[in-house]
């Protein structure tokens, strides 16, 4: 059973004036433990594809099969549950809660989960430790650097132990050093068995992945395995 199976996925945005085909056709599969980069120029449909497979939006056509289950008839509540339990999302602009501590930001997905409340502290502390930010646990999000914010976002994405980590341009708002640290964290997570799917328009960043899916004008043009994958020094060591 594939972790993800996408068959002829489409996404059309319509309003009264304009009809936009953001994704024309996408067919691919994802296995557990893969590290995939989805690449393409602006407007290629890469973010739209990411949003569909991460349950943030419904496809307009085609089939999306997740862990062997067709998601076609999922209602919004079921998609919300999948976003909470099955996936973790890291955004380009971090999207942390302002005026809120690192601890409370990382804890956010647990509030909507059915994990017992007395386990929350332990899970949050483990997630924060996994990105090397124990010393910043009580800092407010606006007191952190860009790299630290993204690490908090990764910890938040991991706290519920999801099957897949999605990252939308994870280094887009970071300097090169912070970007390298973030990529190393993603590599290490993948080495530990986590499936990572990342969207990027930067070749340098994409080459950290083991497989690259290219999109252009809403369609997959290439789907290749990376032979000489880029690597960094231990990301968590760098982070400290």
């Amino acid at each position, binding site marked *: 059973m594939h972790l993800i199976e996408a068959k002829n996925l489409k996404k059309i945005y319509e309003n009264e004036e304009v009809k936009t085909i953001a994704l024309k056709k996408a067919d691919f599969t994802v296995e557990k433990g893969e590290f995939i980069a989805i690449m393409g120029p602006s407007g290629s449909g890469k973010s739209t594809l990411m*949003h569909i497979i991460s349950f943030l939006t419904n496809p307009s056509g085609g089939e999306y099969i997740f862990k062997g289950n067709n998601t076609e008839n999922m209602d919004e509540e079921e998609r*919300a549950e999948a976003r*909470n339990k099955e996936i973790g999302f890291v955004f380009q602009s971090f999207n942390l809660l302002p005026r809120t501590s690192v601890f409370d930001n990382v804890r956010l*997905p647990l*509030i909507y989960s059915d994990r017992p409340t007395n386990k929350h502290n332990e899970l949050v502390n483990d997630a924060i430790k996994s990105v090397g930010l124990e010393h910043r646990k009580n800092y407010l999000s606006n007191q952190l650097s860009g790299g630290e914010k993204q690490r908090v976002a990764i910890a938040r994405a991991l706290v*519920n132990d999801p099957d897949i980590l999605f990252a939308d341009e994870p280094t887009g708002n970071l300097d090169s050093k912070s970007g390298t640290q973030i990529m190393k964290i993603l590599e290490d997570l993948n080495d530990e068995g986590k499936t990572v799917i990342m969207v990027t328009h930067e070749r340098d960043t994409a080459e950290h992945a083991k497989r690259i899916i290219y999109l252009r004008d809403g369609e997959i043009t290439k789907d290749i395995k990376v032979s000489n994958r880029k690597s960094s020094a231990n990301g968590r060591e760098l982070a400290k």
Partner: protein
Amino acid sequence: MRSFLTMLGIIIGISSVITITSVVAGAESLITNQIQGIGSNVIGVLPGKSDESGPPTAVLGVVITTLKDTDTEAIKKDIPEVIAASSYVSATDVVNWSNQKIVASIYGVSPDYPIVTDSAVETGNFFTEEHKKTNANVVVIGSQVNDDLFGDQNALGEKIKIKNHNFTVIGIMEPQGTSGFQNVDNMVFLPLTTAQNKVLGIKYLGFLRVKIDKEENTDYVIGEMENILRYKHNIKDPDKDDFSVRSTAEAQETLGTITQSLNFFLIAIVSISLLVGGIGIMNIMLAAVTQRIKEIGLRKSVGAKSKHIIQQFLIETIVISFIGAIIGIIIGILLSFGISFGVNKLGYNWDFVITSTSIVTACGISVLIGIIFGLYPAKKAAQYDPISALRYE
């Protein structure tokens, strides 16, 4: 700041509810005390007709000249259940003694006045029928008049001047405070005919009061009084009565009805204020939802369902509304205390009343307002889809 503005309407509305319920309770207590101070088992007659439920016309300041002292005398003579009866005329005027001058209420009354009002002379005597018959220039003064004019001096035998006439002080009343919404201690009592002829220049009465032997006889005596008055005024049709007969119990009931109506009216006004407060809450929460669209998107992206978002915003609204209610209750209590303090300073016995019912009701109203007016913004917040919300600028 936004939270404070959100709750301002609730603060004003709730403090008004607490103040109004306290003031009405205090007013009812005051009215009861004042009317009971007139005297027990007392029936009053005012000139002019009124229907049974409304106030007599004379109370509204209209001068009606249909009542005479002969009416009082006939009622006392012909109804055995009437144990005392007094006519009343009144004015406010300057009272002079030596180089002292005060403004006091001048009352012309019958010798039965102390019996009717359950009052007594502390020093000296009250005037008699003889004084009344001879238009004697004698006066009995209230305790405050005594203090203000004479201080530590003995007032008995001294002459005070009202409207160029000198009157000899023959008695000083016991301190009584306020009764029938009048400061009795600041009154000066003349024999009825003396007051009519020498001070007021009138032949009619302001009103008359009688004291009856037993409360159970009230309705019967009222009937008899009406019959006597119709006979003396030559009235054949009760609809053409030129007088109003009321017992203190009826007066209390009438005033009680008025205060209750006032209560409902004021509560209705306050309800409008609470409605406005609720609309204010809704507007500000809608603005808050717009400001926090990205946060909503984030929460949804990590697994929040619509019900979680609705719950979050609804709870925020209810908490703000409830805190507004607490502040409003505190302000209401302080305002009520201030009013009670002020009215007591004027000499009235005003009870400071805050009921647990009013506080619980206020808290309940605030929660209800939070729910009703918070629901729409909360539902609107829950409708955003995560992607559009996260992209919102």
